[in-house]
């Protein structure tokens, strides 16, 4: 990976620059100038920036393709951003961009989705009249998010990557709190930002611990990914003294670093215990949520692990933790999603569940599978967010599932897209998720992690749960009898074409995108005996560590059959319960009320947070520190005491000395000033 010869190409800088420029213009216009700008100018600017960024990414992608394997790297270094130090300890962080296959794949996905989402948003924001003053603001935020994402993916060093990483968090915060008049949304945005910050801090600690590693390897200090990877052997021998002798005398430095990045990634993928910010995604405008949640947040997390794959491979314990966190997150998310009454919430927790698979794959060392799955998921979930957004728009933001039903006839265009996307997400054979999740399941089955049978079992069970949850969502919205309140029925209208076409675009990719990653076992099945079927893996080449050896073609095919059966079972259960009338489901819920209640309350995940973090926090910060230590001890006792002491000192005879000094200052100052003037004018 390191030995590739990079080719300079100034194309790259324009990819993040265009969205940033649009964001800047929107910011200046809506933040400083405050003159009404015609709407066509607003969306024209943003959409052209997004579409151009996509076109340039495509161009970069083809330029990469045109090169032979081993030469697929483009670089573009603008200038030295932060340079400090000389000699050995010199550290220069360039604004350096680098397009390699790994970055190119995600960049295409992100800019592609962003372009479609921008187009969708043009019509969506027109139709969503909750607060029409935010038209330009929303586009500005979207562009900021997109530009940050591009920087994150293209950065050739950790500091610049962090810049994009933070930008994504800021964009997310702004978008989640977009309707800032609602306290819930503001709170959601704040939670997103804080959760993200926990990840950021972990990211920074990891960076700080990493950056001296090249020194130990005899290289100059550096944050370049390539240098960091080259210094891995030296890094593996470094240790950190354990604080207070916890867990042995010293810790392997690489373990600590990998753990830091694990935390960062968990906060991004909304995995336990950093999933508390998910509420934020519920308040985000639909197009923004589509771009934010999976393509940006999850995409950046997966990208980071892939980029630092060498670290995780050197820290097997952390990698195993990754897999387990992922599996648990997938299970919890799917369980919670299956019982929610709010359409947005079902969607958000389904996303959490799906993203759990990403961590599972990464933990099993199947980096290519994780990348494949995140690409597929980003597209499919973005489409689903847009679809649900359209439905809610038709219902004037009524998001309770028990007030929907039978919307299939009223919203035919949206319904058609939903059939495709939900089908793909459930795992209908041939759809992209069928292949991508299949490779994740295969990887977990074939891994040698602790408790891998359990991992596989959880993943398989979650497949069934996902099918149940998404099937339920689909059926409750689009079929059965109509439960829509009368006041809303009149206004139910299908989305305009400008909103529908981007969704179709995403849906079509979601159906056929799997072709890029058909596992070898399927290819061998066909008569063609394709030499190399997994075109994604082949394109990535050496950019990612090779997939671990699979369990064999026959086993893989059986695994696919199991997954399909599980999904079919889950969907059948949903159909049995919700297809006709929801009474069956209600009766079932009555049969096990405690489970239903627990799931509906999101498994009480917020409770430990509230009791272990929020309340003690308020007590310690406001009582103990604020009014106790700061005001009482420091303010009254210490300073007050010092004042009394000084006063006593003055009384005891220091008065003359001190007063003399104070007068002396003033005298000297004036005298000195005069003397200097006199000298200069002589």
């Amino acid at each position, binding site marked *: 990976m390191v030995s590739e010869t990079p080719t300079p190409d100034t194309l790259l800088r324009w990819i993040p620059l265009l969205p940033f420029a649009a964001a800047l213009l929107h*910011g200046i216009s809506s*933040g*400083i100038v405050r003159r009404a700008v015609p709407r066509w100018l607003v969306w024209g600017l943003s959409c052209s920036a997004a579409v151009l960024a996509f076109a340039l990414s495509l161009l970069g992608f083809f330029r990469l393709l045109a090169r032979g394997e081993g030469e697929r790297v483009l670089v573009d270094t603008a*200038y030295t*951003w*932060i*340079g*400090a*130090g*000389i000699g050995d300890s010199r550290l220069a962080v360039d604004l350096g961009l680098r397009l390699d296959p790994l970055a190119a794949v995600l960049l295409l996905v992100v800019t592609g989705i962003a372009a479609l989402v921008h187009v969708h948003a043009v019509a969506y924001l027109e139709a969503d009249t909750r607060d029409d003053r935010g038209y330009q603001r929303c586009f500005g935020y979207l562009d900021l998010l997109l530009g940050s994402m591009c920087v994150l993916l293209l950065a050739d060093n950790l*500091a610049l990557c962090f*810049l994009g990483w*933070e*930008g994504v968090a800021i964009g997310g915060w702004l978008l989640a*709190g977009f309707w*800032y*008049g*609602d306290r819930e949304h*503001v*709170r959601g*945005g*704040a939670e997103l*930002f*804080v959760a993200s*910050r926990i990840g*950021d*801090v972990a990211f*920074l*600690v990891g*960076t*700080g*611990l990493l*950056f*001296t590693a090249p020194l*130990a390897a005899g290289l100059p200090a550096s944050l370049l990914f390539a240098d960091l990877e080259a210094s891995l052997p030296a890094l593996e021998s470094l240790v*950190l*003294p354990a*604080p207070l002798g916890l867990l042995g005398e010293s810790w392997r430095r690489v373990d600590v670093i990998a753990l830091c990045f694990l935390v960062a990634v968990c906060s991004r993928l909304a995995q336990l215990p950093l999933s508390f910010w998910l509420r934020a995604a519920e308040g985000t405008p639909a197009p923004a949520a589509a771009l934010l949640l999976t393509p940006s947040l999850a995409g950046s997390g997966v990208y980071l692990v892939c980029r630092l794959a060498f670290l995780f491979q050197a820290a097997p314990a952390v990698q195993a933790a990754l897999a387990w966190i992922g599996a648990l997150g997938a299970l919890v998310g799917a369980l919670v999603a299956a019982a929610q009454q709010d359409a947005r919430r079902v969607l958000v927790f389904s996303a959490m569940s799906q993203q759990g698979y990403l961590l599972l794959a990464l933990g099993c060392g199947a980096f290519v599978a994780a990348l494949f799955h995140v690409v597929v998921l980003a597209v499919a979930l973005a489409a689903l967010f847009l679809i649900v957004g359209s439905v809610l728009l038709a219902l004037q933001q009524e998001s309770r599932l028990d007030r929907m039903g039978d919307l299939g006839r009223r919203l035919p265009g949206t319904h058609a897209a939903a059939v495709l996307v939900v089908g793909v997400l459930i795992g209908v054979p041939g759809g992209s998720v069928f292949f991508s999740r299949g490779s994740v399941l295969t990887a977990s089955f074939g891994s040698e992690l602790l408790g891998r049978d359990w991992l596989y079992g959880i993943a398989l069970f979650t497949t069934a749960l996902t099918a149940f949850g998404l099937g339920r969502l689909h059926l409750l919205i689009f079929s059965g009898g109509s439960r829509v309140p009368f006041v809303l029925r009149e206004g139910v209208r299908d989305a305009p074409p400008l909103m529908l076409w981007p969704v179709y675009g995403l849906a079509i990719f979601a159906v056929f995108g799997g072709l890029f990653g058909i596992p070898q076992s399927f290819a061998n099945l066909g008569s063609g005996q394709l030499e190399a079927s997994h075109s994604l893996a082949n394109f990535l080449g050496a950019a990612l560590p090779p997939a671990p050896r699979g369990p064999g073609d026959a086993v893989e095919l059986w695994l696919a059959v199991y997954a399909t059966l599980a999904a079919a079972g889950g969907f059948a259960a949903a159909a049995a319960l919700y297809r006709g009338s929801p009474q069956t489901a209600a009766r079932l819920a009555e049969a096990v009320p405690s489970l239903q209640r627990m799931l509906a309350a999101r498994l009480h995940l917020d409770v430990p947070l509230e009791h272990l973090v929020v309340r003690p926090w308020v007590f310690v*910060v406001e009582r103990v*520190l*604020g009014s106790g230590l700061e005001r009482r001890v*420091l*303010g009254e006792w*210490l*300073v007050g005491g*010092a*004042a009394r002491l*000084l006063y006593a000192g003055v009384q005891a005879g220091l008065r003359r000395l*001190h007063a003399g*000094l104070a007068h002396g*200052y*003033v005298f000297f*100052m004036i005298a*000195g*000033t005069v*003397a*200097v*003037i006199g*000298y*200069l004018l002589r």
Partner: protein
Amino acid sequence: MLLDLVTDHLITWMILVPGVSALALLTTEAFGGLPRLAWRVVGLASATANLALGVLLYATFDPTRTGFQRVDYVPWIPDYGIHYYVGVDGISLPLVLLTVFLVPIVLVACSRQIEHAPRAFVFVALLLESYLLGAFTSLNLFQFYLYAEGLLVPTYLMIGVWGAAGRIQASLKLFVLTALGSVLLLLAMLTVAQLGYLQTGVLTFDLVTPPWGPARGLVELELPMEGPWWQTQHGLFAAFALAFAIKVPLVPFHAWLPDAQVEAPTAGSVLVAALLLEIGAYGFLRFALPLFPEAALLWTPGILTLCVVGIVYGSLLACAQTDLKRIVAYTAIVQLGFAVLGIFAQNLQGLNGSVLQLASHGLAIGGLFLLVGMLDARRGTRELAALGGIARAMPSYAFFLVLVALSGVGVPFLAGFVGEFLILLGAFRASPWHASFATLGFLLAALYTIRMLSRVLFGPAEDTENRKLIDLDWREKGVLIAICLPLVGIGLYPSPLLRRIEPSVSDLLQQIEIRQQRVLLREEPAVPEAAPAAEQGP
């Protein structure tokens, strides 16, 4: 001819321009006095002229040279080694620029709000600028002392005359703590000079060797490590450190700051937080470290711990405050804690980052206090409970508040990040565990900033007052744009500043390291690699 006179003694002119115009304005009072407007115009003109001189200084500053540039050296009281001795290097340059940049901004932004004694306000602001520049450029210890302590006079005035209700108590607190520090500093300073006299036979307060004359700079002395405690490096370093720790202020010597900030008028808050506090950090860098490097080596873990405690403690308290101004005051403690952390990391990343942090902190905190003042002037309260939903009525205000506040959080592409990032890298090299805890400050910064922004700007505007507020006018926008441009500029492209900071910093570091190395060698001859040993942490 006249131009030569200016360019040859640029620093002196920069100190004189505001000082002399202040005095000149004062003398006009004896002849009947000028109207308010004339005071304002003259004050602003002189501050702007000084800004132009600052730009000239920046443009003619030679980034390739180490050591001091633009040196002026005039014997003043030669018998006691007290000279007028000024010059700039890469460490003081950003601070000088910050000073000449912020004072005109404060004059534009605040002078209209001052109703009581507006002339005296102009006078005090100019005097403050002159003293600040003197303090940042002094190369004579005694002269620095005079400027740094003289500064307190206009500061007391600022708080005592234009402050809010609790101003008397606040300035008393300020006085008690700073007086303690300055007495210590004076005694330690006299001792250093005396020790120098005993070693070289020449009595001088010059920090570095002057361009002519028999005196050698005090930094070249090797002060003893053993002897009566008040004559050893340890005792002297402790006195210097305590004095500067009060000025910065490091926790637990910070008690004066929040009160002083809250009671001060907007202009006072800006100048105190953005400039006065930096004298403390600057003092560590300019005096405490180079004079007593051997002692500093021993005290470093302790000071790093103080910094980390201060960062966390200050952030926690910022989370607990309900007065907008008090929140911002505590963030100043956090930011300067980071700066001192970088200084005592004692490596290039840390020091470079600290100097840059001082500059960017000054801009950001100045902007924040200005913004708080603008809201206070409109709404009449700074209590979080009374605010909320301001963004709807004041979108421009929201834009600037978010931008400036995010710089304090350390968001990349804004100035705050570059300094903090370098400081953290430096700290991670010096002591990973300290640095890890310091990063908590990043998290907590997000908490208090988001809390502040959410409570002030967002949410429903329940109070009708908050719906009727009038957005910023163009004068205010202009002021804020002037602050935000360098904030973004430094964040995007800090190299021009870093390039000028770096030679001085690395020169300083080299001097310190050579002397510290000798101590390490003397004490532990078995450990020649000091650097890898430092790698491993505390």
